[in-house]
């Protein structure tokens, strides 16, 4: 653990890291830098994960607890009580966007702090439909489609038909409709419909998936905007809710077939180096202004991300708001400076403001320099529709460089069995360059130095999406 001594509001706090893998390690690292003790949890399947060995080594006296599930709130509360925690950091996924969990943490007999937005804000913005309604009421453009979950097949068909007809009227040659699980997220439970006759079977498939995975068969039906840029605006605010600031934009347009992000770049557009068919600078200004307007209206009080679609003509549409820290926050942090100082840690900012410290800086204190690219290294087969490719990792190495930040929960001691219970994410590689060209070149150097060896359960050599990333290094920024 770090020797840093917390002061003021941060003193006497202890944080329960209610997550696993890479994000758990990052939270533990941020706690160490702030000098705040922590307790971590793990399940039987995760016993070999790097976050377990990190917690065992750094957390101090009894800081690691085996639980039956990361999804069991009772389990997390009892560990928090046993370990004497005063706050819970949910990371991303699991309980990060569950307003009931956030409310319970703050309302129970032994109250704790939920490190994230307050539960009322999660309830308001965590629901894609509420977000859409709120955005429309503020004049913020949103993707055309249903503004509530659809449970009735006939109604779903009617909405899909209207969206197909609308696109035809707009002169779109290949209209597409997106069917997605209302309770889903992170690209799970989303499918496209090309042919109106296929709509019913896709709808049923997504409805059944949603029921199995999220226990809610509500489905959203939207227009699928093609050839778009997927942009994000990083917002940070404190408990005073007075002055939310932004930490710039990210471009997450490179996704695999399952609409899972693969490569992220900050800033969202680079007009000084690349040509666009629209005024890119104006679009960035617009989405930042819209995001801040919504954040101010709801009184946003922690870290959050506003997700946008920007069409080829430069029209932005708000997709959703993620009321949590995101996987890709590291690219924004990498290029950000506060009062000219680099090394920004958005998770530490989240913990600090979550525990009640004021932000301590204003928008004009935040600056940006350079370009950052993040590669997600995932055990999956790019030649087989990106299906998870699980097995045993026997070798995992890369060449260290000052411009590279590697975040991984794959332990130093190999072999490591990739658990099938969780996302197949293995690592995040964040590469920095003074401009887009340098970042691209360094990215290629990193990917060429990367070695991943092992076997899947059938004895075949282990694959990862590295091949896909390498093939695409020439067109990393395809906007």
């Amino acid at each position: 653990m770090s020797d840093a001594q917390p002061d003021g509001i941060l003193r006497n706090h202890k944080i329960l890291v209610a997550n696993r893998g890479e994000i758990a390690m990052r939270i533990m690292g941020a706690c160490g830098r702030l000098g705040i003790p922590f307790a971590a949890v793990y399940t039987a399947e995760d016993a070999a994960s790097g976050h377990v060995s990190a917690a065992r080594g750094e957390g101090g006296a009894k800081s690691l607890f085996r639980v039956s599930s990361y999804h069991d709130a009772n389990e997390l509360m009892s560990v928090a009580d046993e370990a004497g925690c005063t706050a819970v950091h949910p990371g991303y996924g699991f309980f990060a966007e569950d307003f009931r969990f956030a409310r319970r943490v703050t309302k129970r007999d032994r109250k704790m702090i939920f490190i994230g937005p307050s539960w009322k804000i999660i309830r308001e913005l965590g629901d894609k439909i509420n977000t859409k309604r709120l955005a429309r009421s503020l004049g913020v453009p949103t993707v055309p489609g249903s503004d509530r979950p659809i449970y009735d097949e006939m109604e779903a068909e009617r909405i899909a038909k209207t969206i197909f007809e609308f696109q035809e009227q707009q002169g779109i040659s290949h209209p597409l409709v997106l069917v997605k699980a209302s309770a889903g997220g992170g690209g799970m439970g989303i499918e496209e419909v090309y042919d109106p006759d296929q709509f019913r079977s896709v709808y049923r498939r997504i409805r059944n998936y949603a029921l199995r995975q999220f226990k809610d068969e509500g489905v959203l039906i939207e227009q699928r905007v093609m050839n778009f840029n997927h942009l994000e605006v990083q917002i940070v605010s404190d408990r005073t809710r007075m002055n939310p600031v932004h930490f710039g934009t990210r471009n997450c347009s490179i996704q695999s077939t399952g609409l899972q992000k693969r490569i992220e770049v900050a800033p969202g557009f680079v007009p000084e180096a690349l040509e666009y068919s629209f005024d890119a600078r104006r679009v960035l200004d617009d989405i930042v202004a819209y995001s801040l307007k919504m954040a101010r209206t709801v009184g946003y009080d922690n870290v959050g991300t506003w997700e946008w679609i920007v069409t080829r003509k430069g029209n932005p549409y708000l997709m959703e708001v993620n009321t949590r820290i995101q996987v890709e926050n590291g690219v924004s942090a990498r290029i950000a400076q506060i009062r000219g100082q680099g090394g920004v840690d958005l998770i530490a900012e989240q913990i600090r403001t979550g525990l009640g410290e004021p932000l301590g800086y204003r928008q004009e204190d935040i600056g940006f320099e350079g370009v950052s690219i993040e590669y997600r290294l995932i055990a999956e087969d790019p030649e087989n529709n990106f299906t998870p490719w699980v097995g045993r990792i026997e070798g995992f190495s890369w060449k260290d460089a000052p411009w590279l930040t590697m975040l991984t929960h794959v332990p130093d001691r190999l072999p490591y069995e990739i658990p099938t219970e969780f996302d197949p994410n293995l690592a995040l590689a964040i590469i920095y360059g003074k401009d887009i060209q340098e970042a691209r070149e360094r990215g290629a150097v990193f990917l060429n130095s990367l070695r991943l060896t092992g076997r899947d359960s059938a004895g075949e050599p282990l694959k990862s999406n590295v091949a896909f990333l390498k093939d695409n290094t020439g067109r990393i920024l395809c906007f």
Partner: protein
Amino acid sequence: MFNISKLLDEIKSSPYREIIVAAPHTGKIAFAGVEIGARVHGPQGRWKETPGTKLCTLERECNPKPVCAPENGEICQVHRELDGHFVEAGTPLVVLRHMLTRDEVQRIILQKTLYLFPAPERAKYYFTPEADKKIRASDARSVTVHNGMELFIMSRMKREVPLNYTGPDGVIYEVYFKYNKNLDAGSPLVGICPQDHLHIIQNLVMRVQTEWTET
């Protein structure tokens, strides 16, 4: 042909199974008055609605949860040193010696006789909606399968892919997986019995029912 008498003799020579009762979740443990050598019973009733003998209580978030014997048997070990302490999920609490029941013996023998279709990967498995509907309406034995038929949905890391059945045609005689539970690669998913072998299987079942005595 499969030698049932030999297999039954093998099982009879060691008719016990050791069951480790572990903490299902975290909490503070308080042992009930159970002693080594005491006989305990598992859940009873048509739908197993009566819980087994209470072994201990696990309290979490002010909710005391009784931890009961999962099967009939005799207590061999009690981890009394944990009494009154906070335990983590999976901590061994009690060890039982359980004598195999008729159903368990039948299951062992059926696993040696039926065609077992294995799980290709560690994952969660579901029947396709069509097969699931039939099974819910009557039972698994009402579903006839044939080689290449899309029968399962394999779900791992939140991503789902269809899985085709490969093997001889027949009916689903036994289902070895549970919804929302992970199954290891190579574990059987279903036991398939060809239509013309049904009478042999039924004879086997009958023989176990008559020859195996439960204590």
